[in-house]
């Protein structure tokens, strides 16, 4: 009797604690800050998290396979400068600029995937190398210089509600991919137990490769949105963005050992981070404290993750 009750409460906490944290933050902010209550501010938060949210989705896939992708921050810069270089010469060729940027990012993602899946390099090491290579590439490609964009159409990608739409569409597609498609089941299987997955016929190497390409392309999309938002392609942009993406996935319940994770969880994770940044800005709290608080929340989330897992065993 006692055991069943503990089990239920642990399950309950595990499933909903992160939603409760987000709700609590919102309620608190609604009480203390009149601005927070406005629709405009809610739209702001969504728009601001969309850039980080898109890479957090890719990161969730990667972490679920038991890996990690440290290159995403650098890929945001790569995407921005590649698109920027094309738009500077030909401001109307938005489609080509986007395709080229995504192709380059996908290729760099494939490089990560190749080393992780086929060469057996640990994901942390492979993508750490990829991170500096991609950043270096962004500097070399742009000669260290930001591209100032004067395209008429390009800014619409980052304007108004379009980043939010892009983000939410990606969230929806990723959720379906993970829950309803064969590829999603393969990701869970590969992350849960790679040997068992391989034994039961899952082409684990190909799954890994695809997951890293996916993460690369998503980082590319994120880079396009950011470049459009700031109307410039900058090689130095996106430094450290991978940490927010990892944080969002982990806060959202993705297990660093792989096999466990959900897209709605990551969505809540990124909203928690976005609410924190926005809320502390509204309260005029220095950005230095934001970093400490963010760190504490990550620790808290992971501690819950470990505890609930142990209790449910």
């Amino acid at each position: 009797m006692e055991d069943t009750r503990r089990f239920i409460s642990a399950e309950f906490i595990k499933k909903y604690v992160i939603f409760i944290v987000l709700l609590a933050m919102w309620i608190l902010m609604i009480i203390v800050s009149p601005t927070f209550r406005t629709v405009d501010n809610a739209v702001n938060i969504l728009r601001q998290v969309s850039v980080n949210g898109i890479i957090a989705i890719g990161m969730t896939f990667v972490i679920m396979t038991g890996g990690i992708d440290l290159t995403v921050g650098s890929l945001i810069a790569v995407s921005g400068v590649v698109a920027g270089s094309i738009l500077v010469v030909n401001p109307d060729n938005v489609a080509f600029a986007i395709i080229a940027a995504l192709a380059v990012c996908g290729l760099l993602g494939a490089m990560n995937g190749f080393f992780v899946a086929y060469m057996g390099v640990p994901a942390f090491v492979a993508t750490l190398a990829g991170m500096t290579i991609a950043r270096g590439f962004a500097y070399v490609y742009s000669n260290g210089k930001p591209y100032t964009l004067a395209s008429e159409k390009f800014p619409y990608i980052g304007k108004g509600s379009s980043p939010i739409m892009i983000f939410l569409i990606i969230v929806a597609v990723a959720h379906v991919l993970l829950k309803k498609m064969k590829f999603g089941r393969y990701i869970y299987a590969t992350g849960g137990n790679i040997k068992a997955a391989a034994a039961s016929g899952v082409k684990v190497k190909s799954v890994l490769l695809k997951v890293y390409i996916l993460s690369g392309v998503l980082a590319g999309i994120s880079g396009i949105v950011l470049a459009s938002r700031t109307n410039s392609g900058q090689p130095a942009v996106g430094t450290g963005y991978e940490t927010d993406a990892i944080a969002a996935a982990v806060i959202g319940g993705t297990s660093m050992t792989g096999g466990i994770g959900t897209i709605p969880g990551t969505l809540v994770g990124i909203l928690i981070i976005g609410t924190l940044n926005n809320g502390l800005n509204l309260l005029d709290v220095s950005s230095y404290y934001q970093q400490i608080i963010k760190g504490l929340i990550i620790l808290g989330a992971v501690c819950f993750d470990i505890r609930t897992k142990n209790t449910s065993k």
Partner: protein
Amino acid sequence: MKMKKLLAGVLVGTVMLGLVACGSSAEAESESSEAPEETVAVEEVVEEVAEATEPVAEEAEIKVGVLMKTMSDTYSNKLGTAIQTYIEENYPNATLYLMDGQADIAQQISQAEDLITKQVDVIVLNPQDADGSAQVLDLAATAGIPVVEVNTETTRTDYASFVGSEDVEAGEIMGNFVKEQLGGEGQIAILEGEMGQSAQIKRYEGLENTILKETGIECVATLSASWSRDTAMSTTEDWLGKYADLKAIICENDDMAMGALQACESQKREMIIIGTDAIPDALQAIKDGRLTATVLQDAEGQASKAVDIAIKVANGETVDARYKVEFQLITSDNVNDYITE
């Protein structure tokens, strides 16, 4: 043994690459190698290349090391490029080693060590931050290499010379301008640079000397956006919702001003926005009537002065301790004088 050969091969390759890339009369760094024979070979190659590319100059060759804070924010890039072009055009007998510190203090210090190993005659330092980069002066002093600081100052004063603009002045120009525009009353907000950098500290001091003293003007928020456009944009978005009566945003550089402008435009808010640096897209935005004003930090003026002084120092001539390059206010009235293309 095989390993050593490989190592030596890599070393040779690296040095060759470096030479090809520089295309200059650089001498190979005297690295302590474990394979002496190979090192000799390297030196021969170096001499050949050096002879081939030696500029026809009577005067002794001067090696100028430049430590840039970064080459990736628009102003720093302008400054670095200006230094490069000015040296190439005016001092054919000088060899330039320009290092991009990539906004990382540890990087800048190790690059200083590299320049010292290269035995440059003078170091032009564009400090990463006021305290951290002071260490470069220690390193250079130990090696007996004079340092000319450009654009930003370190906390030290034992440099050979400082060439730059008084950032306090930029702050004062911004403060006075916005005060006039507002007619002495209204709400303002300030976007600060990376906290602790001398440009941030001094530009803010300039604001304190002017607009922040006004009783009619209320500064509702001050936050750091770390010089960057995307952070400035999201911070401004947060402010716009909170402060309906906000009339002006003062930004300590133009990248942040462009971010603030982007945010105000997408929410269709009229705002007086001023930055500093006069980067190309800020000038264009002023011309188009979108951005209110900027303050020009004269990159070319700083670059040419710094190089002139550095060469003098390297030649053992005496120079003044400080050279001031003036700031200028740019509004829609005079912006056409500053757009080159």
